[in-house]
């Protein structure tokens, strides 16, 4: 048979799929819908196989594990949740992506109501002369190197309503203990505060605080825009959105801003916290 007219007639997708299957030890013919590849097509598949193999090798390269201390701390934090599982589902759900999409749509009406409530609350508090300096953006702390001494305005452990006039303490503050990092503390705080403070009641009261200890010089990353939830003169060291039941919440860990901040990119800031005590704010609405 003359090889000359046997130019590849398979599509790029078919050729790449055949190559990919070959790498994985599958039969490339499965990608060809019964088509018998021509010699040219075989050569093309072989060439693409070699090309994709370098990618496979790169993705498969070993990942350096965290330090032993970090690993142990993460495992400890997770294991501490044993016995606190909530079979009712009022926790961050474990679901497939196909199940998650409707949930996001379901939140929309609540978000609208929350936004309206927030606007009303702010207006009412403004009329009564209450100040809202806590909401001021901490733009001065953004970028470059900054050191801000802790002041008396740093939020104490107690859940006093100093983040906005519409806030009021949900319950007494909770000391959550020591954690390896701010992320672990935040996860624990979300868990601890979820059942008692953030699952019922008007949106304007959905706020709770806790505290915990993390090692000095804890570092993490955050978006500068997210610092606005925290009190002034503090530094957000962890910020995450989560879902409690169907309610979106924001978990913010902050600390007295005594640490140096080093800008590493336009979108993220590395924050080094020179304090051992962090406070956690679980806030709803976002």
């Amino acid at each position, binding site marked *: 048979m003359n090889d000359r007219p046997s130019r590849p007639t398979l599509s790029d997708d078919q050729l*790449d799929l055949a190559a*990919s299957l070959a790498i994985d030890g599958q039969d490339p013919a499965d990608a060809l819908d019964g088509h018998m590849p021509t010699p040219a097509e075989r050569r093309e598949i072989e060439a693409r196989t070699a090309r994709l193999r370098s990618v496979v*090798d790169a*993705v498969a390269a*070993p990942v350096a594990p965290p330090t032993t201390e970090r690993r142990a701390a993460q*495992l400890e934090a997770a294991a501490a949740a044993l016995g606190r599982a909530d079979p009712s589902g009022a926790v*961050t759900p474990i679901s497939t992506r*196909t199940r998650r999409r409707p949930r996001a749509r379901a939140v929309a009406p609540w978000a609208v109501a929350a936004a309206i409530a927030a606007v009303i609350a702010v207006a009412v508090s403004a009329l009564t002369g209450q100040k809202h300096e806590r909401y001021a953006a901490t733009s001065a702390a953004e970028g470059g190197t900054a050191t801000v001494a802790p002041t008396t305005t740093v939020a104490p452990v107690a859940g006093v309503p100093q983040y906005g006039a519409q806030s009021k303490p949900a319950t007494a503050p909770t000391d959550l203990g020591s954690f390896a990092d701010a992320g672990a503390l935040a996860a624990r705080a979300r868990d601890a505060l979820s059942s008692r403070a953030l699952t019922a009641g008007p949106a304007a009261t959905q706020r709770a605080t806790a505290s915990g200890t993390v090692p000095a010089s804890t570092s993490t990353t955050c*978006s500068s825009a997210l610092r606005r939830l925290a009190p002034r003169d503090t530094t957000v060291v962890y910020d995450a959105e989560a879902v409690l039941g169907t309610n979106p919440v924001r978990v913010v860990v902050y600390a007295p801003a005594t640490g140096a901040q080093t800008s590493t990119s336009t*979108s993220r800031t590395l924050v080094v916290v020179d304090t051992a005590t962090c406070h956690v704010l679980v806030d709803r609405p976002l």
Partner: protein
Amino acid sequence: MTAGRGRAHADRADPELVAAAQAGDRTALDELLGRHYDRLHALCRRMTGDEQDALDATQEALIAIVRGLPRYDGRAAFTTWAYRVTTNACLDELRRRGRRPRPVAPDDTSAPLGPGDVGAPSLDQSSVDRLSIDAALRELSPEFRAAVVLRDQLGLDYAEIAEVLDLPPGTVRSRIARGRRALATILERNPAGAGTVEETTP
């Protein structure tokens, strides 16, 4: 936990450890989580392309696993279920962070270079190094990234990946093939692995 008890747990299969952990056995849970920690972290590391994000996602995944354990019914293998939970945690993390392709600064602490990476196998091409593969993976949509990482980093077969991602096997093999092709294209265009490549959605 005694050493003897720890050794006893180490010899037990996942289903036994799961049952014990569901009954409140902390040491069984420790063994179960510790046994799979490195692979869960590796999944998060490749999915997020950033060590700090990976640690956050790993922590979230571990907590979700523990909290979801009472509802785990054993129909799927524990690893399959755990990978699904972890993949979801990674997707949540990516969504939270509003991840966008971004340049990798020279002093970026998330750069995936570490002592454990030296001498990684099959990396004889300078254009395909750890830095560039992380940057390239970030350019893939999470759905394609998950399929490729589950296959090439964790070594799951197509059926397992289909179960983890809740997708038909045909979709899985297609995503893997197209994801690999996209990665190859990205790496060839940007051998340095910088985040200046255009958005690529296979």
